[in-house]
């Protein structure tokens, strides 16, 4: 809500500067979005009367005006041909300052002296955009200071209005709030005509979503221009002047917070019938669009013809036009939920629907109608009987809210004196009665947000001042903080991966389905931002790969990244999301170490997954795998206890290039962190006996390429209890080795728990595993 301080001064007096006002609003009421100052530097703009217009001798598109500015006449040359003799206009004289500090000086226009310039409302910052010079309608003496007279100088404070505070969508509501929070005093409603409830026009309510409908008639109005003060005030709210009748309804809505409607009495027939729409029926609204009804809308009709969609928008055919003479004024109360449903259904949001959805005051019809009548008769010259039809089948009563003083203190957490609390309740102007334990409060009907005790606690404490509440730790239950094991587990994994030089990233969970070159998502957003963000990713590594690609395309060829995040799946039990570890890398293994020329490889990546498994004492098996988009030569699935928990390997170069514009090898891994957590076990330290010395031996083998190290290791370990461990020392393939072979050098450690081993002991075991290896076609490598 944009609040013009000039306008607000009609309802409340304050001595505070706008800075102080803003501080108080923020401390006690709501957020302040912006503060705009309008016309602060304006000067030397006066009201002028055009007495004579002559053609410019040398320019068809210019005219020369003789303008009375009070004590003298000046000559103004203008290109705006809408001006006529007799018009009263704002004139910026020599030395004048306008919007954006635009300065006016005497100058010659095509050889003719111009002593200033006529202004449009845009130039004096009243309107965003103006077509022509503004013609003043009011009877103002030439020479009058335009800015002073029309109160152009203003400060506009835009406040955030929370959905529970519809009262702050009105000047009277804001003024009342400002009286309560100490910004000003002497709050008063604007003047309005006393109206009596008496049948003036037949109204029938058939839909109980309309709780109240009041109607009055103003006759013989003159449609015309709206006075500048009202045009300007509406403009501060971003509402453009249309004509005096429509402007007055908007003005009263902003004053009271209650949206009202005006019908052309001569177009609507002989009665108002409020009823539900018929499904499939088509209606034409003021925005000149046709809407097909769903049958739940509250319609304003005359029994047969559609007139307006209640609380949302008027109909095209019943609206005010230039020829309107007589007006039917509507002040009604529409149910918030039903209004919202209809507005949402038709995708319409108007100032009216916005307010009805949040709840207007059902009890203010006399004031609102009286104010409308007063302005209509004063400004548009209408006549009114000061009677209104008022159909209000079931009075919406004030709520009664009990508030115990003890409860207030227990929630606030500080000593608020009882008298001070009561003083605040009084300031709100709410009816209340004293009870032994506290109060029973009856808030105004314009505050639908106040329902239960706790709502009153908020009202009293915020006015009391949150800054007066001391910060104290609770003294109740003592809690034992727990880091949550899975969370700690993921942090540890992150640490291990980072230790290998991989950066942690965060990428979007949604992506384009066309970029899913392996698993495809089945989870689609109904309302995505765009196709780029349409599907939830079924593999976390897709996101990591996008980031690898982004860096690679930005000239960084060495990229090692990982992410721990949810991937999304759908099965017959519904949606599943699984915390996964995703790793992707290309380029150098140690890009900042120029002495290390190694590229990232299957083995370097497996080094990471192996360290994770070791850290959590998990026995994992790597099984060669044929995955879509991956190269079989360097890809494995990872199994733990016979369940596949992930994979690692090399992406097919065609995929790397096509999807990521990466011309080098990209290695990736993706592991289910939840399963990993399930299988993790604390380290068993006791089987590591190192009391007796070990014997280490190195063996170089020529291995047929389809054999796997896993089998070799198994043979070693099963050949005798003294085999403590086997580790790869070197794997070599290439020069000097047949293409169907691979050379593997291992170091075996032998140790007995109870004695010092002899060479003989080892030789015996060695014989066993060498025999088994020979059976598999694995022999010592000849030097």
């Amino acid at each position, binding site marked *: 809500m944009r609040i013009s301080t000039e306008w607000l001064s009609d309802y409340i007096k304050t001595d505070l500067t706008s800075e102080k006002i803003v501080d108080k609003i923020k401390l006690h009421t709501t957020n302040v979005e912006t503060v705009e100052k309008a016309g602060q530097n304006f000067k030397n703009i006066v009201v002028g009367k055009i007495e004579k217009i002559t053609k410019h001798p040398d320019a068809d598109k210019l005219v020369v005006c003789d303008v009375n500015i009070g004590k003298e006449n000046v000559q103004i040359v203008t290109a705006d041909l809408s001006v006529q003799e007799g018009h009263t206009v704002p004139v910026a004289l020599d030395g004048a300052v306008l919007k954006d500090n635009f300065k006016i000086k005497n100058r010659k226009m095509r050889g003719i002296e111009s002593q200033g310039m006529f202004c449009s409302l845009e130039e004096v910052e009243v309107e965003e955009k103006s077509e022509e010079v503004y013609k003043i309608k009011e009877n103002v003496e030439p020479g009058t200071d335009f800015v002073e007279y029309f109160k152009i100088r203003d400060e506009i404070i835009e406040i955030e209005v929370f959905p529970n505070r519809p009262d702050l969508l009105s000047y009277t509501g804001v003024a009342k709030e400002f009286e309560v929070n100490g910004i000003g005093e002497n709050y008063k409603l604007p003047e309005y005509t006393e109206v009596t409830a008496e049948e003036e026009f037949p109204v029938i309510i058939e839909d109980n979503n309309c709780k109240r409908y009041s109607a009055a008639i103003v006759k013989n109005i003159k449609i015309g221009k709206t006075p500048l003060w009202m045009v300007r005030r509406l403009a501060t709210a971003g509402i453009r002047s249309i004509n005096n009748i429509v402007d007055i309804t908007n003005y009263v809505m902003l004053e009271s917070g209650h949206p009202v409607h005006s019908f052309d009495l001569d177009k609507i027939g002989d009665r108002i019938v409020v009823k539900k729409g018929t499904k499939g029926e088509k209606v034409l609204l003021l925005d000149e669009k046709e809407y097909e009804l769903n049958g739940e809308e509250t319609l304003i009709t005359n029994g047969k013809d559609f007139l307006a969609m209640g609380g949302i928008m008027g109909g095209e055919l019943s609206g005010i036009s230039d020829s309107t003479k007589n007006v039917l004024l509507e002040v009604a109360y529409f149910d918030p939920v039903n209004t919202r449903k209809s507005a949402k259904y038709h995708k319409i949001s108007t100032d009216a629907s916005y307010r009805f959805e949040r709840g207007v005051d059902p009890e203010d019809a006399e004031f609102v109608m009286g104010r409308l009548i007063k302005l209509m008769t004063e400004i548009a010259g209408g006549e009114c009987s000061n009677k209104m039809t008022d159909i209000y089948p079931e009075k919406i009563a004030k709520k009664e809210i009990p508030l115990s003083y003890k409860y207030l203190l227990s929630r606030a957490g500080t000593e608020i004196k009882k008298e001070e609390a009561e003083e605040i309740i009084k300031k709100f102007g709410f009816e209340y009665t004293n009870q032994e334990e506290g109060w029973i409060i009856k808030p105004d009907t314009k505050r639908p947000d106040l329902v239960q005790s706790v709502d009153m606690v908020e009202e009293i404490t915020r006015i009391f001042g949150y800054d007066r509440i001391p910060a104290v*730790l609770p003294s*109740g239950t003592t*809690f034992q903080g*727990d880091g949550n094991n899975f969370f700690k587990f993921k942090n540890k994994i992150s640490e291990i991966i980072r230790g290998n030089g991989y*950066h942690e990233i965060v990428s979007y969970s949604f992506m384009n389905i066309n970029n899913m070159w392996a698993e495809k998502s089945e989870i689609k*957003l109904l309302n995505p*931002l765009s196709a780029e963000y349409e599907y939830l990713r079924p593999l976390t590594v897709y996101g990591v790969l996008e980031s690898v690609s982004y860096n690679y395309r930005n000239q960084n060829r060495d990229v090692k990244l990982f992410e721990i995040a949810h991937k999304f799946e759908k099965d017959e039990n519904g949606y599943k999301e699984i915390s996964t570890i995703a790793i992707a890398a290309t380029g150098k293994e140690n890009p900042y170490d120029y002495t290390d020329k190694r590229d990232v490889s299957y083995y370097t990546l497996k080094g990471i997954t192996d360290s994770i498994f070791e850290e959590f004492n998990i026995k994992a098996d790597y099984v060669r795998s044929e995955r879509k988009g991956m190269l079989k030569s360097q890809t494995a699935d990872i199994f733990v206890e016979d369940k596949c928990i992930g994979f690692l390997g090399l992406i097919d170069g065609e995929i790397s290039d096509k999807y990521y514009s990466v011309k080098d090898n990209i290695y990736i891994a993706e592991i289910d962190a939840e399963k990993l957590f399930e299988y993790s076990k604390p380290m068993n330290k006791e089987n590591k006996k190192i009391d007796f010395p070990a014997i280490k031996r190195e063996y170089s083998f020529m291995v047929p390429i389809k054999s796997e190290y896993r089998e070799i290791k198994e043979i070693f370990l099963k050949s005798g209890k003294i085999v403590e461990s086997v580790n790869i020392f070197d794997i070599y393939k290439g020069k000097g080795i047949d293409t169907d072979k691979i050379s593997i050098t291992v170091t075996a450690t032998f140790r007995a728990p109870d004695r010092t081993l002899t060479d003989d002991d080892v030789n015996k075991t060695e014989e066993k595993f060498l025999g088994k290896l020979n059976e598999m076609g694995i022999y010592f490598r000849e030097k």
Partner: protein
Amino acid sequence: MIQEKDRIIRELNDEITKIKDIQELQNVKAKYTGKKGILTALMKNISSVEPENRKNYGMEVNSLKEEIENIINEKTEEIKKSEKEKQEMKNWVDVTADGAKKISGREHLIMKVMRESFEIFTNLGFTVVEGNEIEEPWFNFDALNTPKWHPARDMQDTFYIDEEHLLRTHTSAVQIRTMMKHQPPIAVVSSGRTYRKDEIDATHSAMFHQFEGLYIDKNVNVGHLKKFLEIYAQKMFGSNLKVLLRPSFFPFVEPGFEVDVSCISCGGKGCSVCKNTGWIEVLGAGLVHPNVLRNVGFDPEKWQGLAFGIGIERIAMLKYGISNMRELFKNDIRFIE
């Protein structure tokens, strides 16, 4: 003898100047001092010397031996030194060249702030709980006192998967799931990804991270909330920070607060970061709304609560001086490092 002696020394010197390595020197040494060397021969010659001159002869040979040994030793030292130098040249490095760095991967700033936030609250006795990102509307809205047709639903533009599933718009749904599983007293924190249909710009992202806290006990008030948040802000940004609660609205709390901390950039004097207000808005909080307690079956007469929600990106941007939120999701190594 004297003549002989001078000749031997001269010859030795001639020989030794040509020598380049220890092996050759050893050979020379053997030639002069070895068992079959010149000195031995001279010593053997003593029998042919007049008996009265023998003592003299012996002394002369000994002094010759000494002189030879000195020359050889000196040469040995010289060779050793030069060989060491050669070795050094072979292993010469440019001591000013760049070190061969092995870098550690960086923590993502969002994750770093999240982990630090957890740390602060677990130290205060809170337990970490986690939740799903695909949520049911009841948990995300209805249970949190935001029924279907409440205008407050407009505050959060929501991504839907189908009628019954959406991407959570806040981590607050975890509050509900926790309260439905555990009886009070409760003190939990949760954090993770949240989603709102916002166009991606410098201060908005369709995906962002929240950190959520919930505390339920018999007596919980505004002062307690203030204290928890004060501790958090001071641990996160610095011990001099002050906390300011301002009125705000979130359907699931009452009263609801927007929480400011004194500007971390100017300390409260006013600067461009705080738009000259001296305060920076960092999070939302409030006392748990009695309707929420009722929705999960807790008696609001008996139990009270406080809750807070922190935008992780906001904290990270303030703490690390990042002006554009998009930087946090680009994962640009130049930025990360």
